[in-house]
């Protein structure tokens, strides 16, 4: 760990001049206190490996893993440039400024899934170097044993903190959270799944036990921020953004309001195309960002976060996050 410590010491000094030269940070008073993370995300891709066919339908030509992979590669190489400059100076090449995440329902929706049961979906996500995903209700569709088999091809973990999968074929095949070091930042990522009752057929859900998403997420976020010292906690959620017909039903908005120490919810399930990220106040008055990008891989979402330095003793104080304009390409 000595080299990491040295790296952090040196980059703390190097950061100011490097970041100041980056136009993103122009106009910031304390440029040497700012660092940045790019999050790319998808949800409810539903086995859409190829673009929608050219049949005159409203989504024709949209989606597809080949175009998404190329775009992700381009964004990564751009965003890694600043970090690479640190790395060159410090002889460290372990850092990356991009996190690529998915909020579940990877499976079901095209004949690829009927025939191959998720094999090409998982292989494609691994090839794109996804960092993590969570479980959607349709990821149960070919059974939990099948999910466990397909995950043998996964280079990324499935994160979920509110499913007890003991005595199922998925036992010990998921993680409650994972911590990513991205440059100077420590990012904690966890996931919450939707209640399978009335949604996933009993024979497919098997012994899956659904646990309270709020209590389990808060337990996890508290651990990540206070014990593990993460600078940011991200929750991948398949609860759904909101339910018009029943606003009290558990959803990302309810989750955000009742959460603590969660900075960002990457959502799914409701196939919601959002004009801009939603911002909700959590129970201590801090901002929680919620975002979701429709379905079928029609969109790749991008969130560029800037971070400012703060005192650890102020961790419990509420803080606000300014949602800026759309990133201009």
């Amino acid at each position, binding site marked *: 760990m000595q080299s990491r410590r040295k790296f952090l010491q040196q980059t703390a000094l190097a950061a100011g001049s490097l970041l100041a030269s980056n136009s993103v940070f122009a106009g910031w008073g304390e440029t040497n206190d700012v660092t940045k993370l790019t999050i790319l995300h998808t949800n409810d891709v539903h086995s859409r490996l190829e673009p929608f066919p050219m049949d005159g339908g409203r989504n024709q030509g949209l989606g597809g893993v*080949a175009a998404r992979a190329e775009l992700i590669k381009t964004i990564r190489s751009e965003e890694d440039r600043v970090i690479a400059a640190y790395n060159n100076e410090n002889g460290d090449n372990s850092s990356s400024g991009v996190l690529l995440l998915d909020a579940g329902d990877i499976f079901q929706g095209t004949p690829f899934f009927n025939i191959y049961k998720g094999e090409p979906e998982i292989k*494609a996500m691994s090839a794109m170097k996804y960092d993590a995903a969570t479980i959607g209700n349709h990821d149960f569709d070919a059974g939990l044993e099948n999910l466990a088999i397909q995950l043998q091809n996964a280079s990324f973990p499935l994160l979920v903190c509110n499913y007890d999968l003991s005595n199922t074929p998925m036992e010990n095949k998921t993680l409650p959270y994972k911590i990513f070091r991205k440059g100077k930042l420590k990012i904690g990522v966890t996931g919450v799944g939707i209640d399978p009752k009335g949604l996933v057929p009993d024979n497919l859900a098997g012994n899956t036990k659904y646990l309270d998403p709020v209590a389990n997420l808060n337990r996890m976020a508290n651990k990540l921020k206070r014990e593990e010292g993460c600078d940011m906690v991200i929750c991948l959620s398949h609860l759904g953004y909101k339910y018009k017909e029943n606003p009290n039903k558990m959803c990302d908005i309810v989750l955000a309001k009742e959460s603590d120490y969660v900075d960002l919810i990457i959502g799914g399930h409701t196939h919601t195309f959002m004009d801009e990220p939603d911002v909700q106040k959590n129970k201590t008055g801090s901002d929680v960002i919620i975002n979701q990008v429709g379905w079928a891989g029609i969109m790749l979402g991008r969130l560029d976060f800037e971070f400012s330095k703060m005192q650890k003793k102020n961790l419990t104080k509420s803080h606000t996050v300014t949602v800026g304009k759309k990133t201009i390409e």
Partner: protein
Amino acid sequence: MMRSLVKYPLFLCLFFAVSCDTAYQTSTVQYKDYRISSKQPASNELSSMLKPYADSVNKSMNDVVAVAGITLEKKQPEGTLGNLLADAMMAKAKEKFNTPVDAVFMNSGGIRLPSIPQGNITRGKIFELSPFDNQIVLLKLNGKILQQFLDTTAIRGGWPTAGCVYQLKNKKAVNITIGGQPLNENAEYTIGMVDYVANGGDNCDMLKPIPQQSRGYLFRDAIIEYFADAQKQGKALVSKIENRVSYAE
């Protein structure tokens, strides 16, 4: 705990004139949605990974099963696509079970495409429309249970049906007729649906205890066969809004 141990050089500490025990927190976020399209550059790695799968899928899925005479749309409380699929379920349920069926219902969430454009419909398109391996089942429902079931569909915005006409009012089903006759609480009806719903899916818990009659017949196969029947007769598939499901005034 690593981070709290990191000691920044002394002058930085003095600069902040406070403890070195610092962390970062999110301060601003910018956002962007990239539209992904086949017009954009494609990754060679992903294209070649996908090719063997795609070749095999396309070989079995690109045959034209039928032709849509109009663009069929999924809508609530009633849409042309839902009506056509409900008609397919009704026709094929009667045929496979060889018994009269009073009404069929399909869950709106089970229709997985927003529309089918006018023109050729491939086998693959039908798989996308109905990807689940759900079977058609018949249930004997008394009028009371049927009312509860329809109230659940009302909460969910109205479901495609054939054989039943009903209206939605304050999240309840009203003015219900089955085969043209008002719903009778004491009568017993033969109702077709997919096993996902009959097993309590989409919050239809009231159906869980009801015995199901099954022939192991997939709803998707029913759609394919119904569409192929029309094709054989040289007919394009059409459907219209008939106020099967509507909002009460």
